[in-house]
């Protein structure tokens, strides 16, 4: 294998590992803020409920801290990878990518990393109000971080506001760069993906705690919050995804053609539900199709003409990984919607029978939720592959080709570090999941009565 393939594998490994943790952190912090506010609202009026919300807050703070640490260290790795493996990217697109990354570090990264210390360890050292503010600051920081990173990523998908001078990209309009054509859709889609990831993580782990009889009053409240959040976010995500798709069709038609497996330009294109993309023969084998549906979904017009892969010789992405990732993502999305709505309907139906401190769910529902603990991770990864592999063979769509920007290191050197990263990432992933399960286990004895904002 050559350095290009190995560098791409290495980057894919790094970004796949990294994305798992922001996917949790972006939304989890808002969940934490919600738990924290519920605690404050109940304090004084209903001490039992206040303590329950506090239990939820502290369990999930621990998980947030752990995810944050993994996100930080893998994020540092990403920032070095640009230089070690893709020096051409920064040399040619650095004038635009640099400031966007810089604003992320300056406005977001320091904010979250600094106030995280106060949020985690400030109890007893700062007032209730400052502690609440620290939680808010971290939540804003993670979301702002997502804003800048997705702005850069979207700009690489739909570049705007620049001119080429001597092979280098120069900024002409920063507003067009930051708010590039695909940015609003990608931001909405990613924030909702994070919400769903966290909702199913919280619901799944809580369900698992109840099944293992290690639940406390906070577990049930966290579970209800998560199921309702998922029920709201899932349909919104489908709308956002559809709009994102329309935008992609307009700006990256080759990506859509690969997603749908449309090999030749046609009118009233059928939707391929399943099949086996055969790139050599230029067709999808064993395809199960619905006539005209692709045109209807993608262009909202049953007679619309869709461009096929034949229009993009040497400039379209590999079909199979994009095709399959997309189907995995959509399938998981539908499953999430059904699960969340079933759960919410159960909550609604039994709202008078069961108090807030008890779970109204059947064992089957709990098992389903527990099984879907990491469904958000899978869907996020699949979506990420659709959008990132779908951009190939370009790094900056239509402008800079990936193959032209890679560093020419000896392949064995890239291979050795790739293996080292893979080993470390695999071990950490196993450790992370095991520690999650461990933390969701039986509670430890001796809990102090009030924790948030207690003064010594």
């Amino acid at each position: 294998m050559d350095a290009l393939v190995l560098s791409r594998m290495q980057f894919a490994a790094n970004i796949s590992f990294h994305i798992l943790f922001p996917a949790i952190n972006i939304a989890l912090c808002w969940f934490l803020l919600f738990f924290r506010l519920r605690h404050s609202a109940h304090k004084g009026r209903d001490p039992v409920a206040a303590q329950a919300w506090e239990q939820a807050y502290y369990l999930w703070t621990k998980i947030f801290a752990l995810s944050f640490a993994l996100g930080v260290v893998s994020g540092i790795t990403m920032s070095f990878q640009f230089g070690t493996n893709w020096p051409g990217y920064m040399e040619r697109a650095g004038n635009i990518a640099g400031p966007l990354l810089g604003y992320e570090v300056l406005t977001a990264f320091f904010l979250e990393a600094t106030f995280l210390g106060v949020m985690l360890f400030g109890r007893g050292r700062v007032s209730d109000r400052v502690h609440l503010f620290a939680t808010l600051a971290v939540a804003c920081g993670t979301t702002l971080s997502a804003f800048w990173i997705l702005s850069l990523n979207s700009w690489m998908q739909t570049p705007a506001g620049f001119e080429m001078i001597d092979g280098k990209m120069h900024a002409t309009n920063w507003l067009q760069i930051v708010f590039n054509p695909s940015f609003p859709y990608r931001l909405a889609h990613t924030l909702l993906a994070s919400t769903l990831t966290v909702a199913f993580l919280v619901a799944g782990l809580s369900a698992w705690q109840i099944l293992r009889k290690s639940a406390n009053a906070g577990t049930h409240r966290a579970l209800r919050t998560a199921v309702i959040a998922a029920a709201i976010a899932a349909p919104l995500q489908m709308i956002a995804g559809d709009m994102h798709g329309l935008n992609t069709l307009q700006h990256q038609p080759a990506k859509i053609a690969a997603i749908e497996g449309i090999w030749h330009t046609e009118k009233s294109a059928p939707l391929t539900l399943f099949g086996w993309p055969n790139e050599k023969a230029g067709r999808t084998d064993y395809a199960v199709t619905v006539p005209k549906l692709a045109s209807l979904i993608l262009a909202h017009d049953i007679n619309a003409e869709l461009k096929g892969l034949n229009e993009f010789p040497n400039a379209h992405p590999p079909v199979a990984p994009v095709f399959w990732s997309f189907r995995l993502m959509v399938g998981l999305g539908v499953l999430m919607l059904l699960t969340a709505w079933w759960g919410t309907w159960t909550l609604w139906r039994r709202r008078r029978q069961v108090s807030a401190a008890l779970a109204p769910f059947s064992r089957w529902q709990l098992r389903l939720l527990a099984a879907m603990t990491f469904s958000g991770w899978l869907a996020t990864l699949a979506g990420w592959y659709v959008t990132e592999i779908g951009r190939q063979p370009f790094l900056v769509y239509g402008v800079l080709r990936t193959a032209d920007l890679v560093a020419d290191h000896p392949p064995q050197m890239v291979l050795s570090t790739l293996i080292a990263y893979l080993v470390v990432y695999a071990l950490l992933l196993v450790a992370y999941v095991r520690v999650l399960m461990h933390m969701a286990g039986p509670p430890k004895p001796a809990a102090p009565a009030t924790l948030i904002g207690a003064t010594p």
Partner: protein
Amino acid sequence: MTWNEILPLIFMAVMGLALLAYVILDGYDLGVGLLLPFATDAEKDVMVASIGPFWDANETWLVLGVGVLLIAFPQAHGIVLGALYLPVAVMLIGLILRGVAFDFRVKARDEHKRLWNRIFSIGSLVAAVAQGWMLGSYITGFDRGALSLVFAAGIALTLPAAYAMLGAGWLIMKTGDALQLKAVAWARRVILPMGVALLGISLATPLVSPEIFDKWFGLPQLFALLPIPLSCLAAFWATWHVIARPRIVAAGYGWVVFGSTVGIFIMAFLGLAYSIYPFIVLDRLTVWQAASAHESLVVIFIGVAITLPVIIVYTIFMYRVFWGRARELSYGL
């Protein structure tokens, strides 16, 4: 000088400050990691608790340093990181292991805690050695000659001693009783290796690079530069004086050890900056040659000018919140 020429210099300074802040701040928590194996289990918890609220923010300075390199000097970014491919990868793996071990050790089952402690120390050592190697090869302009490699290896082996000194100084400030006395003893152990190493590096640098030799040992500037070695000597003397007499530490002057070590780091940094200026890749690329487009520098300069003071303010706020002796690390039920 025009604004066009000054702006790259400002970014050079910002990058230097970020890296200096990183070396000092992450330096002490890497140092604590290096000293961890020599403490008892209960002391380990206190040591980790003393850096708990800070390490995330400390590592962010590294991201800012590399970020500025990438934002302001994209040409140099590729050359530097390309030449340092392997040590960067080694450092990253060290930092990854260390960072996550820190969080895992608090949450893991008791039988796993020992393993995470070990990973924390090994990660700290690996990161410190790799950073030393990176610094060494940077100063020699990424030369692959035998002499340069020996020089890089020399720094790789000595940077951990300097970090351990910072870590010991930090623990002297943040702890008490038996652990504080232990930290004083650790400081006594590492001060000599660190001094010898710094002296060696200071003498070897001009020998490895003739340009640096001329910069230092020409006549008028030699006198102007004298404050740098002299204040280093003074800082060494102060540190030595305090750690040789534990009752001075007991009297509340333990912070002198940390303060003086930081002073030595700052002086070494100034000396290095003087040696390298105006190059960003020694003998190959000056600050101006490597700078990105002016309009991009302006955009990010606005951001730096607004946010850097704010960052410094809330960093100080956080250090005030966690001022004084480290407390037990607990944020769970």
